[in-house]
């Protein structure tokens, strides 16, 4: 019998990445820095509002969430630039603090709802959340996190609600939102990417897929064999694009006679623009393209060693991998090298490698957002199952909002 109580549930996908948290609803994605910080005092905040000359007054850029466990406002994402004390949601692949991670979920749902309202849609009312957790968190932590979320929801009759009180610090506007939770489904982070490939590229056919998610602070490996994540082989390694950029920063520091340290953030900012030159005061212009290439090759080599070792274990079980997928913010730097290494390992031709080593670009999604899309699809599938219907595998991302500064004018 179909459970018709799921008829009005909106599927949401989300993940708390090491640098960015992403949430997806239908064709809409929001992404903000995975960081939360204490709010300013009322008087300091009032002063900040008066002195703030930014014209970017979007909620996602200026967001504070009321933390009722601490009875105080917490700044989320970009707004935490004004906090004295900041906490990252995850570190080295592990959730740092459940209360902070819960704020992250509240912020994600609030921003998605706000985006709906700005597009003349009703705010979110009832959701089913497919949520990615860091691989190292494991099943025990997942259970504990489940229970923590449950303890923070408020019961009304037989139903549980999430109350969100949010403030746009730039404008001072405060909004309250009440969202009914139908379910939360936790899965390993990179499983989201697998779901996206399954529904869009694989045509709902089950291909064994080895997913590598190269993030800012960590890279994750997750072999999915016959639709199940191979937990024994999955791992989160504390090495990512941050390692690459901080090594470049260190090399520049050494080559400038230890006089000048370029923050890794400045190097990071240049990568999406394909800029590889940075000015080092007193030493002139430093071109780090070759160093970047070497650092990426080193990172790729570490990944490949782990992949090869896992392939031996997988083959011993009599299984083979049909597809190798690389996703995550680092994929744009590493993917070509990864594909070449896999190609060389199997002695595949270019054509076979192109077919079997895949990235999120093939799905028309940025590498960074493919997991959140996949978790939305996972939630959608679970709702369809409850309603005893076929799942709709289609998706098209039409809007992405981040907490990066927009309309920068002084």
């Amino acid at each position: 019998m179909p459970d018709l109580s799921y008829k009005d549930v909106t599927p949401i996908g989300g993940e708390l990445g090491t640098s960015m948290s992403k949430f997806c609803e239908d064709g809409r994605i929001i992404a903000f820095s995975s960081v939360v910080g204490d709010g300013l005092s009322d008087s300091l905040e009032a002063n900040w509002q008066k002195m703030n000359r930014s014209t970017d007054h979007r909620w996602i850029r200026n967001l504070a969430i009321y933390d009722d466990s601490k009875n105080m406002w917490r700044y989320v994402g970009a707004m935490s630039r004004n906090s004295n004390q900041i906490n990252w949601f995850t570190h080295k692949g592990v959730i740092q603090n459940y209360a902070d991670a819960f704020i992250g979920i509240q912020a994600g749902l609030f921003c998605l709802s706000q985006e709906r309202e700005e597009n003349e849609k009703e705010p979110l009312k009832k959701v089913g959340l497919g949520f990615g957790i860091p691989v190292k968190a494991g099943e025990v932590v997942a259970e504990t996190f489940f229970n923590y979320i449950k303890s923070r929801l408020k019961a009304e009759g037989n139903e549980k609600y999430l109350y969100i009180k949010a403030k746009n610090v730039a404008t001072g506007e405060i909004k309250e939102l009440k969202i009914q939770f139908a379910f939360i489904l936790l899965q390993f982070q990179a499983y989201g990417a697998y779901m996206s490939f399954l529904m869009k590229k694989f045509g709902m056919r089950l291909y064994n897929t080895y997913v590598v998610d190269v993030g800012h602070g960590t890279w994750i490996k997750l072999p999915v064999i016959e639709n199940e994540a191979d937990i024994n082989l999955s791992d989160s390694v504390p090495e990512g694009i941050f390692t690459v950029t901080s090594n470049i920063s260190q090399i520049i520091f050494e080559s400038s006679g230890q006089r000048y340290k370029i923050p890794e953030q400045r190097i990071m900012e240049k990568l999406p623009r394909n800029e590889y030159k940075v000015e080092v005061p007193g030493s002139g212009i430093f071109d780090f393209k070759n160093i970047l290439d070497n650092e990426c090759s080193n990172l790729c080599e570490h990944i490949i060693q782990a992949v090869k070792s896992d392939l031996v274990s997988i083959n011993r079980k009599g299984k083979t991998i049909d597809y190798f997928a690389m996703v995550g913010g680092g994929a744009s730097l590493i993917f070509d090298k990864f594909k070449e290494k896999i190609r060389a390992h199997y002695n595949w031709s270019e054509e076979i490698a192109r077919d079997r080593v895949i990235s999120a670009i093939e799905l028309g999604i940025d590498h960074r957002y493919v997991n959140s899309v996949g978790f939305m699809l996972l939630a959608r599938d679970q709702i369809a199952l409850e309603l005893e219907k076929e799942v709709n595998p289609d998706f098209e991302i039409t809007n992405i909002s981040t907490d990066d500064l927009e309309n920068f004018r002084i």
Partner: protein
Amino acid sequence: MMKKQVKEAEEKIKVPLELLLDKETIAIIEAQCEEHKTGRDRFVAVVIRLFLDFSYIARTVGKDIFSFRDEMIKAIVRSRGAGAGDIIDKLSEADKQASKKEAVKAPADLSALKEKFSGIINEMSELKSAVLELKKSLTGAAGPVSSAAAQENDQARAAEKKKDRRPQAGEAAQESQTEIITIDELASEFKSSAPPSYKDKRKKLNKLKF
């Protein structure tokens, strides 16, 4: 004309094999006939049929039969991943030994190798149907047609295929551009020939319900 050709062929058949083939080839034929408990005529007929079948597939993918065979074996072995390395080694070893004509393989090795080859031959026969399936889908992808027209086209294609299966000597490959399938496309099919459908496997996961 036809009668004359048949007569000529019959006369050729009467020529003893010894006059047409070298001793080594004759020894192979004899050994195979012994192994398969069949006569020379039956064996040669089967070999020719197989040659024509594989020649047809090779031509379809734009390769000659020998490079098709080599690439096919490599593709099959590699599609099985790193664990297949020893198979490649054994095949290379066997190849070397055969070319050097140094030693005759021990019966145990031969049967193990034969076992591996029989798997490959199975995959090859799967491949053959995959080729036909792919050809069909490529031709079908040209545009939507009504079911009656589609049936008619299928029949016409079947007749065409039948004609193609026994090409005349010296006949040039005249495949249309859309029907040419590369060896890599075929090899990529080996990632999993029949993956199960997610629709059959999807299940309710352990959700925290409220």
